[in-house]
């Protein structure tokens, strides 16, 4: 018990340090576009765009315990909404964002309905079908979508007062959208609604007995998740200025899911790390081997999953707890045993329990395969 109390105490002491870290992160994020070359700023912008989609996927998969292999399609829906509005109706960039968000929310609500009856692989299959059929559909609707040729639209232009270059302006827009999206996701999770979502993930029948309306929370999780993907797609159109059906094949959906798992499921900043992985690793893989970038990419995913089974976001916490374990071994060790000893019979579920990592409030390290190396326990 006393270790837990101690953990709480250090948590409190950590607060000013956390504020400092956040301040530093903001400074870096704001300063980055003035330091890097335009192409690098563009890459950073894309990381932020993908991070929004991954944050949405995280709500559904990481926190909601459902699965979607169709998020590339929601992303595409958002991107095409923006492109068509700009191309046909000349609405201006800002007007496309709420429309894309609302449209994808409704689309997600629709896809949330099968999610009520299907789970696991079956749900994955249904959502995958959406991702598979959307590109051909976009090709067929040529009068609206421009068919296989896609649509070229105006990129976002910096207003004169800002004095910024195009890439810098787009970076700041993407940064704002990503910051707002991550903040909304965080707020959602730290509330009654978010707790209900987590409860449904962990134990559906117990959640229902506690008064959680399963159908409502599951469909809304899908809808929110689709909304984030749609917003992300919309900003993608602003930044790239071009959409075509081939940019949104089902491989995108799988890449998004892979990025999320690599970044860290059910972690608040995992989507950012996952987005960076999705953005940088493929091009880096291309540098290493021109012949088989896919192989390098795949191998890297395997390596990450071995080294950090809880994703890159969990890696920090794992390293910290490993480092913290060294000194505690010499100091009163018997204090730990009553907590770690009854692990085996403690829970009815097959969850194995890692020692709590204070850094990560919602660790996704419950999977038995991913349990940290506890063989070297005292």
């Amino acid at each position, binding site marked *: 018990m006393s270790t837990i109390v101690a953990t709480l105490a250090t948590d409190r002491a950590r607060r000013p340090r956390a504020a400092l870290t956040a301040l530093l992160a903001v400074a870096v994020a704001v300063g980055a576009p003035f330091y890097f070359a335009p192409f690098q700023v563009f890459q950073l912008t894309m990381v932020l765009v993908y991070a929004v989609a991954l944050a949405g996927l995280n709500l559904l998969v990481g926190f909601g315990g459902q699965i979607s292999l169709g998020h590339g399609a929601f992303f595409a829906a958002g991107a095409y909404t923006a492109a068509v509005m700009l191309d046909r109706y000349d609405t201006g960039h800002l007007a496309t964002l709420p429309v894309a968000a609302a449209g994808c929310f409704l689309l997600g609500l629709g896809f949330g309905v099968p999610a009520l009856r299907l789970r696991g692989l079956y749900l994955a299959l249904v959502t995958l079908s959406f991702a598979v059929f959307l590109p051909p559909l976009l090709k067929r609707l040529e009068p609206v979508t421009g068919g296989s040729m896609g649509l070229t639209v105006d990129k976002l232009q910096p207003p004169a007062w800002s004095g910024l270059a195009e890439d810098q302006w787009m970076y700041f827009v993407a940064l704002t959208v990503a910051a707002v999206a991550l903040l909304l996701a965080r707020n959602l999770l730290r*509330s009654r609604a978010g707790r*209900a979502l987590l409860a449904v993930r962990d134990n559906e*029948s117990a959640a*229902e007995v506690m008064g959680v309306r*399963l159908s409502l929370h599951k469909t809304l999780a899908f809808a929110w998740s689709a909304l984030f993907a749609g917003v992300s797609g919309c900003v993608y159109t602003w930044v790239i200025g071009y959409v075509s059906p081939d940019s949104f094949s089902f491989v995108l959906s799988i890449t998004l899911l892979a990025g999320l798992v690599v970044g860290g499921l059910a972690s608040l900043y995992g989507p950012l790390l996952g987005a960076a992985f999705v953005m940088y690793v493929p091009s880096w893989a291309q540098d290493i081997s021109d012949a088989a970038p896919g192989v390098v990419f795949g191998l890297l995913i395997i390596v990450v999953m071995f080294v950090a089974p809880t994703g890159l976001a969990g890696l920090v916490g794992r390293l910290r707890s490993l480092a913290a374990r060294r000194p505690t071994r010499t100091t009163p060790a018997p204090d730990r045993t009553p907590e*770690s000893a009854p692990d085996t019979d403690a*829970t009815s579920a097959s969850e194995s329990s*890692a020692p*709590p990592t204070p850094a990560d409030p919602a660790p996704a390290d419950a999977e038995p395969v991913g349990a940290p190396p506890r063989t070297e326990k005292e």
Partner: protein
Amino acid sequence: MLAVDGISVRFGGITALDGVAFTVEPGTAVGLIGPNGAGKTTLFNCLTRRCTPDAGTVRFEDEDLLALPPHSVAGRGIARTFQNLGLFPRLTVRDNVMIGAHSRGRTGHLAAALRLPRVRREERELRDHAEDLLRRLGLADVADHPASGLPFGTLKRVELARALAVRPRLLLLDEPVNGLSHGEVGQFADLVRAVREDFDLTLVVVEHHMGFVMGLCDKVVCLDFGRKIAEGPPEEIQRDPAVIEAYLGVAA
């Protein structure tokens, strides 16, 4: 308070419950006993709408319980614990307890995402209430610990705290002391008695531990193969030949 009348549940060819009827008066504690497979948990599942009986009625304070959707039961003031623990293993103890208060909250998704002032206020209220319960049940030390990995006896108390967070008037306990050591059973019995007093609860308890049931309950209902074979005060039930036969069999 609770009136169960003629409940029958069939799973395929198996009759899990066959015309069971009993009532629970406000403020009393009713024990539900019977050999394994007698239908006790099925009856509990009917009361919390996890299972719909093929026949019979369940009335809770003059409301037809069977007409409610499952998620509304908590809002009516009925909470339960589970036989093999129904906690949320990856959530902290505090969050587990706060989910118990879900039916009392009003925050929707949009308000939550925007974190409106009333959301903050509600969140603070729920948290304070959860803290009170955690302190009351001696769980304050483990509030930030994930539920998985805690000792079994502690988890039983966490589940009780979560059920109390519903602010129930009727509390259903499914084998609350199953798996606890001898000493823990005594402590848990004291705890249940104390919270029953404090929160003015009506209890229905399924339990195999006869000492626990007989010490706590005002009335005991005994089931065997889905039928009610006896009902009465604990002293009578202990002497009832039908109950003794169901548990021990008769001499050849």
